[in-house]
């Protein structure tokens, strides 16, 4: 029996109709394509009226197949599948073809776009006739969640989920949770003390009955899929017994070995070989850094071991791996600072009193290496003038084209702190001032009133080569003041470079483990930049905070909470749908050549030696179809993408060569 196909061509307002003659496409499909019973065009197919059109036609006209020519199936395939099943048609008997993103939005010529739209509709009509009814399967969602990254975004997500009663594994790479926010002194625009608002959250996560804290740990591998991920976590050797240690700190105090702390203190301060990164660290269990520990280097000392009251030191401890089963994963791996050495004309690393923003945070911090005194590298002289350079490595075609989002506000914060703590003049060298969140513009006004100087222009060079007597012994900022329209040289004592926020160096690697991709810059790609900012292309994997793009604390917190809400939704629903797009081997025709066996990255194909045939383990198959195209006997079928369907689609898409009419050649 011939199928009855319904074709629905969407105008999408003028989005499609502006470049494609949709009425013509619908009319043509109705008249020229075989088995098309109904062919309509409609203003908005995705509207409830548009969907009703399909439902009514299925009921009244007895349609057995439906083709919707509209936007990308990634946007509305679900919508139309639902419409089909509402009217009693199996939802896999629908095919959606994309005449908006792939056609009307990218082509200028109406005639050519219309011919292409016809091709795509024709392909869908030919294909849909071979589609088969399929039933999705459902699997239970494991209510436990993995959060990667213990910065503010990850903490927020963790606490939201834990408070809702769900178990969370919080994996953090460094010895303590807290992230970059723990390094800061004040937070803009309210100037709350960063530690005062962060540490309660840290200790709450540390003590929460629903949180398993895995600090000093990294993700080794991720297997499985939404609802049931199997994660291997490598716990790096702390060399301190986690259960016995009380965090008294005697070992740290007595350790004779001091090294420069390049991580938490950004190279300005020191730490011991056995250390917790900062006093409020969670957990309080220290770690031994084998690269600087005297015992590991020279087999001497063991002072910590001798003095530990609970005998918690374990010099022989090694890395171990932990297997976790979770239903969902939230990645909140944050950012790393731009290496300011990459802009040599700014002199960082060469000119002593050029600082990075993180160094300056530590300098301002009351718990930092100078106890909050803003002094120059000599450790005692207070600067008489400070220059803050914006957009170092961001908004720069040579480094990162994006805006790092936080630097304008952080610069204003620094300006305020310098004015508050010293008598210095503060200059801000900016390209554009970006203060577009709640309370930010007011903070800018406040700094203008406090007397911070603003120079609009990109700094070309920072040098210590004096030309004038008043420049002697100073750092000279050479820049064009674009408001005045001339070059200026401003001598200062101290320079702060507001380096860009960059994605973590290994973000891509982690993304690959979890099956998500990164943007060109290296930030994780969200499912939709506006409407789905925390979900990713891989179901069950979410992103939050600066790993998705440079953002400030309020935005990171909001994303952390949003990701947690999405995960809670999955847990409450309890089940996830697994697409029935899997491969199947027809055993009676299988020759047992085993070519397909090696094709599968999921080991989803097993070989039955007795029967000399291969067999697909449906639960493991992800439906890529590589085995289907590899089978020399063509006895593997890939559901919903089988050979018949694709061959039909190829024939359909080339309609104007087969019948030689309305060819693109004559249309242009």
């Amino acid at each position, binding site marked *: 029996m011939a199928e009855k196909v319904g074709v629905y061509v969407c105008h999408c307002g003028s989005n499609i109709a502006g470049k494609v003659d949709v009425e013509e496409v619908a009319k043509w499909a109705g008249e020229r394509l075989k088995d098309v019973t109904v062919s309509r065009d409609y203003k908005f197919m995705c509207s409830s009226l548009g969907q009703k059109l399909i439902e009514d036609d299925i009921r009244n006209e007895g349609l057995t197949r439906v083709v919707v020519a509209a936007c990308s199936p990634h946007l509305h395939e679900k919508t139309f599948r639902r419409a089909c099943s509402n009217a009693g048609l199996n939802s896999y008997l629908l095919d959606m073809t994309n005449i908006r993103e792939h056609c009307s939005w990218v082509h200028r010529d109406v005639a050519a776009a219309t*011919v292409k739209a016809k091709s795509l509709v024709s392909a869908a009509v030919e294909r849909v006739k071979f589609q088969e009814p399929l039933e999705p399967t459902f699997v239970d969602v494991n209510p436990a969640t993995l959060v990667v990254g213990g910065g503010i975004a990850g903490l927020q997500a963790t606490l939201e989920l834990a408070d809702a009663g769900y178990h969370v594994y919080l994996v953090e790479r460094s010895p303590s949770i807290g992230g970059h926010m723990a390094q800061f002194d004040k937070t803009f625009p309210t100037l709350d003390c960063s530690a005062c608002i962060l540490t309660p959250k840290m200790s709450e996560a540390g003590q929460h009955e629903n949180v398993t804290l895995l600090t000093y740990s990294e993700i080794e591998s991720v297997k499985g899929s939404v609802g049931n991920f199997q994660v291997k976590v490598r716990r790096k050797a702390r060399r301190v017994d986690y259960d016995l240690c009380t965090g008294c700190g005697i070992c740290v105090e007595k350790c004779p070995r001091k090294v420069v702390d390049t991580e938490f203190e950004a190279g300005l301060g020191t730490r011991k070989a056995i250390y917790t990164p900062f006093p409020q660290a969670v957990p309080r269990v220290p770690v031994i850094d084998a690269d600087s520990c005297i015992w590991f280097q020279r087999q001497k000392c063991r002072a910590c071991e001798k003095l530990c009251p609970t005998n918690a030191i374990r010099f022989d401890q090694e890395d171990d791996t932990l297997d976790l089963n979770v239903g969902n994963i939230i990645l909140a791996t944050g950012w790393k600072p731009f290496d300011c050495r990459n802009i040599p004309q700014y002199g960082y690393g060469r000119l002593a009193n050029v600082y990075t923003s993180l160094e300056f945070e530590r300098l301002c911090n009351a718990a930092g290496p100078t106890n909050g005194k803003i002094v120059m590298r000599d450790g005692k002289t207070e600067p008489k003038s400070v220059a803050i350079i914006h957009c170092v490595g961001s908004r720069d075609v040579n480094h990162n084209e994006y805006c790092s989002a936080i630097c304008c506000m952080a610069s204003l914060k620094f300006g305020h702190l310098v004015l508050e703590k010293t008598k210095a003049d503060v200059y801000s060298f900016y390209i554009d001032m970006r203060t577009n969140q709640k309370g930010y513009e007011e903070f800018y006004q406040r700094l203008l009133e406090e007397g911070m100087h603003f120079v609009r222009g990109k700094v070309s060079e920072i040098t210590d080569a004096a030309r004038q007597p008043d420049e002697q012994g100073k750092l000279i900022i050479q820049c064009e003041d674009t408001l005045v329209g001339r070059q200026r040289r401003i001598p200062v004592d101290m320079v702060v470079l507001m380096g860009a926020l960059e994605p973590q160096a290994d973000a891509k690697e982690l993304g690959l483990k979890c099956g998500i991709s990164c943007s060109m810059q290296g930030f994780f790609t969200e499912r939709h930049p506006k409407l789905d900012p925390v979900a990713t*292309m891989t179901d069950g994997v979410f992103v939050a905070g600066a790993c998705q793009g440079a953002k400030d604390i309020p935005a990171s917190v909001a994303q952390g909470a949003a990701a947690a809400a999405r995960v809670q939704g999955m847990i409450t629903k309890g089940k996830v749908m697994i697409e029935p797009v899997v491969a199947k081997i027809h055993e009676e025709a299988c020759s047992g050549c085993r070519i397909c066996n090696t094709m599968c990255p999921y080991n989803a194909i097993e070989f039955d030696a007795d029967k000399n045939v291969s067999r697909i383990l449906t639960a493991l198959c992800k439906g890529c*179809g590589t085995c289907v195209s590899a089978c020399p006997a063509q006895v593997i079928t890939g559901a919903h993408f089988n050979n018949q369907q*694709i061959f039909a689609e190829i024939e359909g898409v*080339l309609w104007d060569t087969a019948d030689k009419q309305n060819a693109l050649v004559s249309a242009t």
Partner: protein
Amino acid sequence: MTETNFEPKIVGFLCNWCSYRAADLAGSARIAHAPNVRIIRVMCSGRVDPTFVLKALSLGADGVMIAGCHPGECHYVEQNYKAMRRYHLLKHTLLAMGVEPDRVRLVWASAAEGQQLAEAVDSLVADVKKLGPLGWSQNWEENGERLQALEHIINEHAEAMEVHS
């Protein structure tokens, strides 16, 4: 038909996860490109059977684009590498069949690379324009062997393995 107004017809096999979404992104960002590539969605570039390409060419396509995720970024771990291997073998086969191998191109585009995909489309269209129409099927028609030739291509795969169904 003169060279100047020849508009090639190209079939594009795009993987669901990266390249199809790159084409979606090119759309959302309104990156204009040539209308000659008609897209067929497959789950993975590894699904692209070389016979799909031959089928398209035999039905009158002047070129074929196969697009997948970047090496190492495949949604299915490593299946794009399998697409790559087949692609290189296919190029040899095309040469043997008298088809310029440049008519078929494998392209990598991540979901974030709308611009790159649009450029790849334009460059393939420009190159196929230079090659001119393929007219593979018409040529057979002139020989009076079109049907046999078509049949042969589709069955070649099976015959090579001595499987009869």
